């Protein structure tokens, strides 16, 4: 990936944050922290790696994406809108009673969403089902699942990992958004999940640990995952919860809280500065 493409994807990730924050301002509701940790990952997946057709969201040979941490719609919906699955304008209706853009990811209403999620721990199993179905049907698509590091506390995640490893699902790429913070505190404080690399490796995964805000590292890890046969891959993306807005970074305070008017102004100011840096 050349420097120009890297810069384009960085700008896209930044645009996802700005768009997401506007969406939360309209809704006066939404999860910012765990969406902003995902921006670069979503930009690389949807604007570089995934084989998809926004004009044909149910195209049967498309790559699949499951947002197992289904509350991160503030990252997912802007991504889908900017990629052309539905009008960006519609993001203004997020979480409203008459809108199709529900609080958590919803597959029957939102074009481009491949699985309804929200109850933590369940999405990875569905992704395993999609990857298994690809092998059953002789299809060559990849299935990507994004899971939270707090979500790893759910036992079902490890049931799914055990199955994926034992069945050598090399068409499954799991990305752990390791932002180190969950709702009540840091992951270390709430329930220390320990050595993630060792855990995934022992379940039969290829494991890559990367900086989850470095688009080139994300892209390279996905390429390596695709090249490695006979095993599923877990990419442990080390990220910052609330990335891009200083007072939202690395704190559980902004897991699901809505900023007040002043905080919105401060947050947009900070994002504006980043915009200028990226343009410059």
């Amino acid at each position: 990936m050349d420097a120009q493409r890297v810069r384009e994807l960085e700008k896209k990730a930044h645009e996802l944050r700005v768009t997401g924050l506007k969406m939360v301002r309209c809704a006066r509701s939404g999860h910012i922290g765990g969406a902003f940790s995902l921006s670069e990952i979503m930009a690389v997946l949807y604007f570089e790696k995934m084989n998809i057709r926004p004009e044909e969201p149910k195209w049967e040979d498309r790559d699949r994406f499951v947002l197992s941490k289904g509350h991160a719609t503030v990252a997912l919906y802007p991504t889908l809108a900017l990629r052309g699955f539905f009008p960006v304008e519609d993001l203004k209706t997020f979480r409203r009673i008459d809108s199709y853009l529900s609080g958590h990811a919803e597959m029957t209403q939102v074009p481009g969403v491949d699985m309804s999620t929200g109850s933590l721990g369940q999405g990875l199993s569905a992704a395993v089902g999609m990857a298994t179905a690809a092998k059953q049907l002789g299809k060559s698509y990849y299935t990507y699942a994004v899971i939270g590091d707090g979500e790893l506390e759910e036992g079902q995640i490890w049931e799914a990992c055990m199955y994926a490893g034992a069945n050598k699902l090399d068409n499954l790429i799991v990305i752990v958004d390791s932002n180190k913070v969950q709702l009540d505190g840091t992951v270390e404080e709430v329930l220390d999940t320990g050595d993630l690399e060792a855990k995934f490796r022992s379940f039969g995964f290829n494991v890559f640990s990367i900086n989850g805000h470095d688009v080139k590292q994300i892209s390279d890890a996905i390429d390596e995952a695709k090249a490695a046969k006979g095993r599923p891959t877990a990419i442990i993306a080390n990220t910052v919860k609330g990335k891009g807005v200083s007072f939202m970074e690395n704190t559980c305070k902004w897991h699901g809280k809505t900023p007040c008017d002043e905080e919105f102004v401060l947050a947009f100011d900070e994002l504006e500065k980043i915009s200028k840096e990226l343009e410059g």
Partner: protein
Amino acid sequence: MAEKIATRHAYGEALTEAGSDPRIVALDADVSTCTMSCMFGEKYPERFYNVGIAESNMVGIAAGMAATGLIPFVHSFAMFTAGRAYDQIRNSVAYPGLNVKVVGTHAGLTVGEDGATHQCLEDIGLMRVIPGMVVICPCDGNETREAVRAIAKYEGPCYLRLGRLAVESVTDRPGYRFEIGKAVTLKEGSDATVIATGLMVQVALKAAEELEKENINVRVLDMHTIKPLDREAVLKAARETGAIVTAEEHNVLCGLGSAVCEAITEEYPVPVLKVGTMDTFGKSGNPLALMEKYGLTKENIIEKVKKGIALKND
């Protein structure tokens, strides 16, 4: 002698037959020789997935497969599909309306000696409160085969409740027709109606036979589909016979009896008396002895029918 076969055995045959549709896949959580999904596995090993003892993951995998166009049937004991994987069935299957068939075998008291941890008496309730879920509990082998054919064709989530015990065939007869959501009238009558599901259908027929000797003429409805409930048949029974007794191998709370009450109280209230387990856990024991102990008997149905008739004549 009528054919005596456990509904789960008839199920294994029917699922294998349904397997001629290549979209059908079967998943089991290490109990395939009990649920009889192993029969499908023998014929179609490439479409059979033993996921290990991990029911929550099994239901989630099925959801992902259904989202890709396959038709997964997932299997374990009722306690571990409807019970353990309730959240997964609700959120990953039913909420997105995915075409997954959830099968719960060994339902109710008649698991027998394994005892209370395995005797699911709450699954009808758990499954029928989920919006859009179809809930079916066939009474014999023939009805099970028909139910499998019907749900394989039906687009959407279904729960199929099956039993461990061999039961007498009562539906294999001329004129019988299975349709999801349509009760089967197994006996006409005008003094009261017994609405039964699962193996209580056979018990209800025996009770009706005894009552006939006392000139009490009871209608017997085989309510194989608890959801969507055949409101028309229930209301017709209320209007024409004036008293209803429900019979199910399930807690009287939230099961068939409750569903019948919900239907008639809004339109044509008549006495409804429920035969089922009385908000209690089961225990280890011989299956038939357990049915006796917990009142799942023809004597209890007879008593309730007489009480219902007395109430309507009050």
